[in-house]
């Protein structure tokens, strides 16, 4: 390996690592607020990328049906609850968010000819379609189990992952998709060609991380999420709704996932099941941070990206074996260094 290749691999590793870092942040956020180990995080990457690809080739993305269906399901559950427990004032909001909003998105897709839109508009449409799925999934799968042990929530997360992978196959088929790059520009830096898309990925990741930082430090909702993460009961006593916190954290996770998908779709071909492995690599990063520290998680994720890129050069067939076997020592280290309070059943 000469320097040229080493730098190229580093570029690759950092690009992927930036995506893993975003996912790691989302995983830490969801775990801290809801105690859910969000295995389906990666599915949002695939759904985001494939939805954008569908819009660009003029197909109706299958995720639209999912949004409409999940909206109806949430509306039914919430309406039943509102009628039973006397929350009639909430009814207009329930209908607006779960029935009217998805209908508006559908209307936009059918009436506005997405193929002729500029790419930023296509991306906004994609996010408008995919991101609301996050809170809806929280409402349907996790909210009824909010007080369950972490292990039960983990099994539910795995179940949601399975269902979403199956739906992904149903909506988008087994063929992969790639979307055009945001820019064709490339730069020559001391003999290394740096792709425009790489800069987009790294730049957007850093921007997003900065925005998240400001969100958590400066806004009321960000502080509410942090409070819930530190002490659920305490936050609740201060009038912060844990349901709201859960939905908000899933909304952010879905946003980060879908945006990551949009960012890497021009770099690698995305299949309906690509998300799982991408998400798990974000996980490795998150675990390095003990599912608690954002900066360490992000650093760990970059490390995973580099490790993956170098091992694909030396032993490409064993790339996944190497990456996933290396979690085990990290897990052992983590579980030895974190003080573990026994969870009683």
């Amino acid at each position: 390996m000469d320097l040229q290749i080493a730098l190229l691999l580093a570029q690759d590793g950092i690009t992927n690592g930036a995506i893993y870092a975003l996912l790691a942040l989302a995983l830490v956020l969801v775990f801290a607020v809801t105690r859910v180990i969000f295995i389906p995080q990666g599915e949002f990457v695939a759904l985001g990328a494939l939805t954008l690809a569908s819009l660009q080739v003029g197909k109706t993305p299958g995720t639209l049906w999912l949004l409409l269906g999940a909206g109806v399901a949430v509306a039914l559950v919430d309406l039943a609850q509102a009628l039973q427990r006397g929350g009639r004032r909430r009814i207009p909001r329930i209908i607006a968010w779960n029935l009217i909003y998805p209908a508006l998105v559908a209307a936009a897709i059918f009436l506005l000819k997405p193929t002729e839109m500029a790419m930023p508009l296509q991306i906004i449409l994609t996010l408008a379609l995919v991101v609301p799925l996050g809170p809806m999934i929280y409402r349907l799968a996790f909210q009824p189990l909010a007080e369950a042990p972490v292990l039960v929530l983990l099994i539910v997360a795995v179940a949601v992952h399975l269902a979403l992978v199956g739906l992904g196959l149903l909506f988008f088929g087994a063929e992969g998709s790639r979307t055009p790059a945001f820019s064709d520009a490339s730069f020559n830096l001391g003999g290394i060609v740096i792709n425009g898309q790489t800069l987009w990925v790294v730049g957007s990741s850093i921007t997003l991380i900065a925005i998240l930082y400001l969100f958590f430090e400066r806004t009321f909702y960000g502080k509410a999420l942090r409070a819930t993460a530190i002490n659920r009961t305490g936050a609740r006593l201060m009038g912060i709704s844990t349901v709201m916190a859960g939905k908000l954290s899933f909304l952010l996770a879905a946003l980060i996932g879908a945006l990551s998908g949009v960012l890497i779709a021009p770099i690698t071909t995305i299949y309906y099941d690509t998300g799982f492995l991408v998400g798990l690599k974000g996980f490795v990063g998150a675990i390095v941070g003990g599912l608690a520290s954002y900066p360490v998680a992000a650093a760990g994720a970059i490390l995973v990206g580099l490790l993956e890129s170098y091992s694909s050069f030396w032993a490409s067939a064993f790339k996944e074996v190497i990456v996933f076997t290396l979690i085990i020592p990290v897990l052992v280290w983590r579980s030895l260094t974190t003080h573990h309070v026994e969870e009683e059943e």
Partner: protein
Amino acid sequence: MQRAILALFLVLLGIAPLVLSEFHVTLLNYIGLSALVALGLVLLTGVGGLTSFGQAAFVGLGAYASAYLTTATDLPGWLAWAGGSPWVGLAAGLLLTAVVAWLLGSFTLRLSGHYLPLGTIAWGISLYFLFGNLSFLGGHTGISGIPPLELFGLELKSGRAFYYVIWVMLLAAVWITRNLLDSREGRAIRALKGGTVMAEAMGVDTARSKIIIFLIAALFAALSGWLYAHMQRFVNPTPFGLHIGIEYLFMAVVGGAANVWGALIGAGLITILKQWLQDLLPKIFGASGNFEVIVFGIMMILVLQRARDGLWPILARLVPEARRSSRAVPQGQALPKKAMPQAGADILEVRNVFKCFGGLVANNDMSLTVRAGEVMALIGPNGAGKSTMFNCISGVDLVSEGEICFLGERIDHLTARAIAHRGMSRTFQHVRLLPAMSVLENVAIGTHLRGDKGVIPAMLHMERTEEQRLLAEAARQIERVGLKASMFEQAGSLALGQQRTLEIARALAADPCLLLLDEPAAGLRYMEKQALTELLRRLKAEGMGILLVEHDMDFVMGLADRVVVMEFGEKIAEGLPEEVQSNPAVLEAYLGGVE
């Protein structure tokens, strides 16, 4: 009634291949193979509380080991003797799986809480990719031309013949699993779910129990893989991926992970449903693919939301249970007892112990002694550090500085288990018992160190004499503390005061010479308190040393021979009950100073 249903089930299983079509026999074969893996998960996840998504990888190890050995034409010299025979393949597969599982287990079982299932996902993926990328295992195309099983000179090529092999092995596995759970080792395994602190304090080696169930689950999976390889006579990596591992876990959870029969129900349900959905869904959607995972995922969410214990408990409720009163109190020869130390001898000496949690000093230069045949009471306001002192003495926490001697031996560096072994037994301030187990079984956990029969005799039920003696001992202690009427009730159904009394019986079942009781009278009614006082007096007369933490002053002052008072982690007074009661420092600690 239950026996009749079991007999009917076995008869139906026996005649099934004679009357069913080839297709249905094959389906039953697949159910049997999956049930074997799910059974391992019942033991591991449902009973032991360790969640694994990676079992499919062990199935793969069993399948690939035999597939490789029976088909390879270029085995290296040292392995050549093992080629050709499926039975040698089975032995090799089990051995390989045992080694891999032991290695993975010794790393990943140390992981706490949710890190363990994440670890199983990691090695589940690793092994899957390894199968697909090793050229001598045929890569992603796999290995074909695997020879069929031969039994008594007969080649088992048909599904009908294979049916009996699978189901006999499965039923044997069910039998040994049930036997194991109903034994001393089984109680140790079931105690894992209540947290390791209690089990270790009763002398259970929890790390060993964990690795045992991990190995058994892995070996069941490997056996299933071996059967699969020789039934299918072809293997490739697909059925050993993470998604199949997840499916196995779903089987156990849907069926009811706490019971062996749950594995069979879950495997049956999911396998049949999968078959049906794989036919139906592609027709509905007009495309091919594994769409059944959508239904499985949604089903799983609903099961966990509505019936977290799975289907088995719902089905079991339909069958009337054998009447409680008809159960006989276990009888058996008394167990040998340790010799009690000389009355009045110092059995426990705590010298200048410090315990710090970060900057907080919970125990500051604490010293106390307990003599054989006396009740020593440790009292003090809330937060004085009494329970911390208890945890240091019993080995749940390590002291930061200082010495603790028990029967003349330094124990401050020993584990809770080793200390229990030396004759100290304790109860907990926050009751730690297994609510779903009977009072008798809970108390029998206390006898753990008084038996020595291991896993293999337990699986074959060859340890019944010892088991009877242990249960009889537990029954005696239950009678002694006055819980005889609820011996076969679920421990979780008792009132809190009775649960505390149960803990005393459990501690006594260990045959201790020093008893550590953490607030034994809390939640007891007046009459019960009197009975407890009586019991402790009798124990004292027999030469037992008792160290007591208690808030009920009437109870303490009527019972204790000596009292140590703690406040803010320090000893502020020590002496006879009357002396302590009039000590100004104590009065100030309890009632506040006079300004």
